[in-house]
């Protein structure tokens, strides 16, 4: 399973939407999402009805999709449009169940994001949404890489999650790691089978099941199975408020925690994949920021039991 990455577009706490992640890394300390002027990206008639997570996803997606030939739209979102669900419950509780506006209900369907992207792009191709919490992006990526191979086609794939007050219910585990913070973001990519003009290669991707103390063995097996060399860099992230913190260099390879930069959210692997792609594409800028790699393994720890893995290779 292989596909080339052609475009990236990410909304994060850095101003990555304008000019990428690497050039902004040195000044990163904010925990607040930097949102673009949506009205410059999304047509007003659509924008007015969109909730925040839909705006985030659509803005990143249609920016990545600009001038690309797309034959599939694949979206991963761990909490989807959950916030609209909360709003709709609030509305009908308040009105003692009287009939109300369907607005929040319509937008509470998790596939609204992928549906709106297709509507705006007038794209009639394959369209799917995954919501496997901290593995939603990996579910989507596996599908997208496969779809690109099946049809030798360009695929729009991304992950998006917004911060919602409901997450505060998780305070009990958060108390274990006061340094953790819940973030939000959106990252979309164009994948294809064409090497020309590509940024990086996804050499393999998948999902592993492992306890934290045996993850290194599982990573070795993953590399062996796909006949991949030991990477030069591991980008590690928590997509959940995990109980076990991994603070060693996995596989004795320099390990950098991207979730410290973008925050913890279900689909933050998309941020990791954009960062990895930039490190491979801009070696000198990467060196200025302490990265030197031609092969990167992205490791996402969802819940100390389920893990996402993506292997990126630089193009020679």
């Amino acid at each position, binding site marked *: 399973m292989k596909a080339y990455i052609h475009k990236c577009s990410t909304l994060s706490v850095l101003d990555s939407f304008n000019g990428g992640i690497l050039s902004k890394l040195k000044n990163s300390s904010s925990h607040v999402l930097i949102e673009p002027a949506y009205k410059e990206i999304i047509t007003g008639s659509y924008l007015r009805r969109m909730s925040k997570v839909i705006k985030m996803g659509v803005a990143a997606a249609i920016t990545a999709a600009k001038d690309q030939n797309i034959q599939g739209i694949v979206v991963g979102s761990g909490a989807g449009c959950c916030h609209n669900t909360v709003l709709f*419950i609030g509305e009908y*509780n308040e009105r003692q169940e009287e009939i109300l506006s369907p607005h929040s209900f319509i937008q509470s*369907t998790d596939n609204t994001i*992928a549906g*709106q992207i297709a509507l705006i792009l007038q794209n*009639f191709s394959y369209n799917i949404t995954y*919501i496997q919490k901290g593995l939603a992006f990996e579910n989507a990526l596996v599908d997208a890489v496969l779809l690109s191979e*099946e049809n030798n086609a360009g695929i729009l794939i991304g992950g998006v999650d917004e911060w919602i007050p409901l*997450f505060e219910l998780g305070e009990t585990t958060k108390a274990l790691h006061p340094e953790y913070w819940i973030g939000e973001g959106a990252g979309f990519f164009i994948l294809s089978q064409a090497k020309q003009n590509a940024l990086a290669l996804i050499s393999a991707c998948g999902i592993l*099941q492992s306890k934290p103390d045996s993850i290194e063995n599982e990573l070795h097996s993953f590399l062996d199975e796909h006949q991949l060399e030991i990477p030069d860099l591991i980008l590690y992230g928590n997509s959940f408020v995990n109980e076990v913190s991994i603070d060693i260099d996995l596989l004795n390879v320099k390990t950098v925690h991207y979730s410290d930069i973008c925050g913890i959210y279900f689909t933050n692997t998309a941020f990791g994949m954009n960062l990895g792609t930039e490190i491979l594409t801009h070696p000198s800028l990467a060196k200025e920021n302490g990265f030197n790699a031609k092969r990167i393994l992205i490791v996402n720890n969802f819940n100390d039991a389920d893990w996402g893995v993506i292997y990126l290779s630089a193009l020679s």
Partner: protein
Amino acid sequence: MKIFITGMGLITAIGNNVEENLHSLVNGKGGISTVEGIPEIRKNFLGGQVKMLNSELSTLAGASEFKEVHRSTLLGLVAAKEAWGNRKMEKDIRTGVIYGTTIGGINLNEFVLNKFKENDPSIKVDYKHTHDYSFGTDFISSQLGIEGYKATISTACSSAANSILVGARLIKANILDRVLVGGAEAITNYILNGFDSLMLYDDERCKPFDENRKGLNLGEAGCFLVIESEKSLLKTKQKKLAELVGWGNACDAFHQTASSPTGHGAVLAMEQALKMANILPEQIDYINTHGTGTPNNDLSESTAMKTIFGNKMPPFNSTKSFTGHTLAAAGGVEAIYSILALRNNMVFANLNYSQPMKEFSFRPTTELISNISINKVLSSSFGFGGNCTELIFSE
């Protein structure tokens, strides 16, 4: 690589297992009645409810009582256990679970949210438990002892159909050998409110493809199928129930909740599925439609069918007239009904139908047809967001 269906499990308003469902379908016995246990204001609403309490569903699923498990997940577990049967994990058969859901776990969420708002200190819920999403997938996998690839799909009312489609693609790509695929949906106050607010709810029994159709009735269901590669079958020696020979997924890209007048997305998905199965439209012997009973869906879907089948329309029906619209589960429920039609050489009745739609000369099957040979069945599933999925099953 060929994909075979070797296991099926089902619980709906017309039966707690596949056999009971078949019996009701053959006898034209629908399951739509007054929905119990909902707020007074909707007390006359009709739906396809499974008349069992959650505690009874737990018992049926072979556990004493799963107190914190959503009803939708319990329905899913009942069906998953029937489909999975006495299969075991074998180390050289790569097995996965793919589950389709909308927001079926919302009833628990509603409860938690209200407590949260009231600042009730007794509620200490980790945010991983606050809504359904992948909970059903994880729970069902662990209850059956399945370790392997897991995915949760949410494409509204085509979710379970897309689970089947994605499972098949993972087998075809040689990533998995065997996949448990399906979905579940419980009737919840949330969804009733939603469809009521969209004014898509019929206050009588739904009448798919009838000129006087007014809307849908909701239903609840759990459904699972086991699909396997030939390589897996060599080892498991399971009986082949049917073959999945074609599939298509396209987007209507017309409106967030309504289908286009031309049924463009449905046409594209049907064309893809037929092309992949390498057959002509006239080789389809029966269509299990999406047929929700809403004015918009049935008009758009009929237009799409006319585009593909022209004047050679095979027998078609909407089994939602038996079960109600089981949303995320619908595509899986109807895949199983399609396979039952195939295996028993019959087409079930489209209930509550009396007057043809004025736009079309064709009409659904109104009574059970049993003197028919069925080799290929097309099953349609559509959802909010323009999602259109088509599956073709063969003997």
